[in-house]
């Protein structure tokens, strides 16, 4: 019964929080509307997530977000320095292939997004069987180091987060 009203409790909670932030005022009426949206939307969209990802530990999610936000700040400074001070002819852009150990589509999506947001790398393609990512590095002299960095820093953490 409870599962029919809340097929996706995390999504319901997220919708309630986003709605409250959107109206920018915490009143009883707004909260009630948020709850209604939080109940209605997951039921309406249930057909689009037949198998949803399980998140093992919410605490690790928080520490992962903190890590990524910090890395984004560092990435911004690095890319800005490359743009400003490196002569165009010295920028050594390369394609690298990152083999994946993650298998769930949600986890791969998060990893691809993280790679795009962080130090000098943009995710471009996924292989046809979903087993590796094609990543473009703005400037690197050590492609293997980039791959290892992505795997140990982000993928290992995501493997612990997604069941």
């Amino acid at each position, binding site marked *: 019964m409870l599962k029919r009203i809340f097929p996706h409790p995390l999504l319901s909670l997220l919708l309630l929080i986003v709605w409250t932030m959107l109206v920018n005022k915490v009143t009883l009426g707004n909260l009630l509307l948020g709850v209604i949206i939080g109940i209605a939307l997951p039921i309406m969209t249930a057909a689009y997530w037949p198998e949803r990802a399980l998140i093992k530990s919410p605490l690790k999610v928080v520490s992962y977000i903190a890590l990524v936000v910090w890395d984004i700040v560092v990435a911004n400074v690095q*890319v800005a320095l490359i743009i400003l001070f490196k002569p165009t002819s010295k920028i050594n852009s390369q394609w690298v292939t990152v083999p994946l150990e993650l298998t769930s589509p949600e986890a791969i999506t998060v990893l691809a997004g993280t790679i795009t947001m962080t130090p000098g790398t943009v995710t471009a393609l996924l292989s046809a069987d979903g087993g590796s990512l094609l990543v473009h590095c703005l400037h690197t002299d050590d492609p293997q180091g980039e791959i290892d960095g992505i795997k140990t820093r982000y993928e290992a953490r995501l493997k612990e987060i997604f069941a």
Partner: protein
Amino acid sequence: MIVELLITAFLVIGGLFGIVGSYGLIKLTDAMQRLHGPTKSTTLGVGGVLIASMLYFGFVDHHVSFHELLITLFLFITAPITAHFMAQTYLRMHTKESELPPTGRRYGWSIYQDPPVVEEDE
């Protein structure tokens, strides 16, 4: 006074990163390199302005504003996806599969090859 200094500092930092990111579009030579500008530097550019805005509303206008956090959230979700779309379009129009490194798997990259057929489990 301190708050005003902080707000100004964040605005200036945000503006600087915005300019650098846009300058990257002129300076870098190939389309894949240019993608790095808008996905990185601009994030901090917008971020700086948003922090300044939160500080302003919190300390000068005396009410807490959550809209900035939402903008950050939506930006973090949409920026990688737009970058991904642009990269895919660029690769499809200008690059042959032979110019890319191998996947290291039995199958090629997804825009050149169909996904393997998955047998339905009964």
